[in-house]
């Protein structure tokens, strides 16, 4: 057996440990895994390598990724290519933040609790809600947790879910609903791309725990939230948002939302092939004891000085166990820190300007493409920085032509089976230049 200087266990240490539990071979520790599962994990067959050789090998593998330094991205669908200010990487790589990023001896980490409190405050201001937690894993699981919270408060089990909700979030809801015995019912969308209110049946509403809506929705269309809360009465209005869009759109809190969740990745977090992401969660003060997740609070110490704590921990599972509001016992601290620095860096005016740029660029490109023969905007409703194109040619062919020219052209919607025909979801962020958009249009024209 090869001996590696950086692994503290020697073969003799291993032999002693195995003998202690009556085994002779490391492989025996995996005996409980079914053979047909285990055989899928083949050894890589690599000989021991020097650091230089490993760097070279890993570098070659990494170069196979189509990343946004090399490709111009118009890809969205829940995770977006926004600009990440350099200050974020600089600050989060400080050891005080990076090493112990989620505090378990909470009150000792006053600095961490301070910025978490700021994060929560910013989330409340952005969403016009009353209290927020210090984050969840991602937008999808945050939405599922919101669903569970609505069940806990209302005591009811039926949820109406907008069909234009991100399908990955929908899958999260189904997973959590299955465990909790909840019922999910679809609400279709109209040709505007928005929720079909006419489809909301009064008898469905009487036993309703909540209505789940996303805005902008998976198609990029902005939902009209006005009057929805009145329609569903004491059922929960749960809204999933794109935080960037709130730089310009009226926040769900103003429309009577009971819980607002969302994906915080656009707030200074890299796309990283799908994660880590950032779940945002905010609600009303009257429901705070049913809210999941960690929450920083501000108080005064025995000498009257301001200090920060982990508040209302009696909701959490390390105290309430099976009666906890959720089984989450952490937060996405490092990602939430990115978002906090991002929001503080941009400020209120910067976020507004950013949202305007996204909106304007997306509309500029949508107009240009819709003018081409063989392309049309699928939905007539208002949109933010993403839109669906109905295309004569198959999206797979268009995407290949675009990829050959160095573009990640968007998302082919066919696998999601939400729409008939050929549909391509295109996102345009502040990063996209006029030149990039012109070339994009040119390639589509000739594809």
């Amino acid at each position: 057996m090869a001996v590696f200087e950086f692994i503290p266990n020697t073969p003799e240490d291993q032999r002693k440990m195995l003998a202690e539990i009556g085994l002779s071979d490391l492989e025996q520790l995996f005996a409980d895994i079914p053979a047909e599962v285990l055989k899928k994990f083949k050894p890589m067959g690599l000989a021991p390598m020097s650091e230089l050789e490993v760097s070279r090998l890993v570098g070659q593998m990494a170069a196979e990724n189509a990343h946004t330094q090399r490709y111009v991205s118009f890809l969205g669908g829940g995770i977006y290519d926004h600009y990440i200010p350099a200050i974020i990487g600089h600050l989060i790589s400080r050891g005080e933040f990076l090493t112990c990023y989620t505090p378990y001896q909470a009150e000792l980490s006053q600095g961490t609790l301070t910025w978490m409190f700021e994060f929560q405050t910013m989330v409340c201001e952005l969403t016009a809600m009353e209290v927020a937690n210090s984050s969840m894993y991602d937008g999808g699981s945050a939405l599922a947790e919101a669903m569970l919270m609505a069940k806990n408060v209302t005591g009811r089990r039926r949820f109406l879910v907008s069909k234009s909700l991100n399908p990955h979030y929908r899958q999260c809801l189904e997973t959590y609903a299955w465990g909790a015995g909840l019922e999910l019912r679809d609400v279709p969308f109209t040709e505007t791309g928005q929720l079909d209110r006419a489809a909301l049946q009064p008898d469905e509403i009487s036993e309703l725990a909540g209505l789940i809506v996303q805005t902008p929705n998976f198609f990029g269309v902005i939902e009209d939230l006005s009057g929805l809360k009145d329609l569903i009465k004491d059922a929960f209005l749960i809204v999933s948002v794109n935080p960037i869009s709130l730089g310009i759109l009226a926040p769900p809190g103003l429309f009577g939302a009971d819980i607002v969740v969302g994906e915080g990745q656009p707030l200074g977090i890299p796309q990283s092939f799908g994660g880590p992401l950032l779940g945002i969660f905010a609600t009303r003060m009257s429901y705070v004891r049913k809210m999941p997740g960690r929450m920083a609070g501000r108080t005064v110490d025995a000498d009257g000085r301001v200090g920060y704590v982990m508040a209302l921990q009696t909701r959490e599972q390390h105290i309430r166990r099976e009666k906890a509001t959720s089984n989450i016992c952490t937060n996405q601290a490092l990602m939430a820190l990115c978002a906090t620095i991002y929001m503080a860096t941009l400020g209120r005016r910067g976020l507004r300007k950013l949202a305007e740029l996204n909106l304007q660029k997306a509309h500029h490109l949508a107009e240009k493409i819709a003018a081409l023969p063989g392309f049309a905007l699928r939905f007539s409703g208002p949109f933010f920085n993403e839109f669906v194109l109905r295309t004569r040619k198959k999206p797979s062919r268009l995407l290949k032509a675009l990829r050959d020219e160095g573009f990640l052209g968007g998302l082919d919607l066919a696998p999601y089976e939400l729409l008939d025909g050929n549909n391509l979801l295109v996102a345009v962020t502040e990063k996209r230049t006029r030149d990039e958009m012109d070339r994009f249009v040119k390639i589509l024209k000739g594809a």
Partner: protein
Amino acid sequence: MPYPKEYRYTKEHEWVKLENGKARIGITDHAQHQLGDIVYVELPKIGTKVKQMQEFATVESVKAVSPIYAPLSGEVVDVNRELETKPELINQSPHERGWIAIIAPSDLKELDHLLTAEQYEQHIGA
């Protein structure tokens, strides 16, 4: 603090005081002492029907959340709203001002399953 002789007690540290056929309920001095400073009480909804020893309220201290069990089956007819703003009443006056709810009992024979003050004191090793 002495345990009132006219009350009945559960092994889970609730007390019952019969008043004109209705049952006033709270938690004992022993319980509030174990819990520490009480910061929140989740009161049951009026009209809730409960079975004996079914969880029907919760009391929250800084370090723990404790379920409160209905000592008798019946219907909740009143709750102590004062606890919404002054949960510390349970610490200060657990057997009187810190009462939690009043139940209209459905079967008074259930009282036979409860402990007397003397039996309760023995139970907690007083």
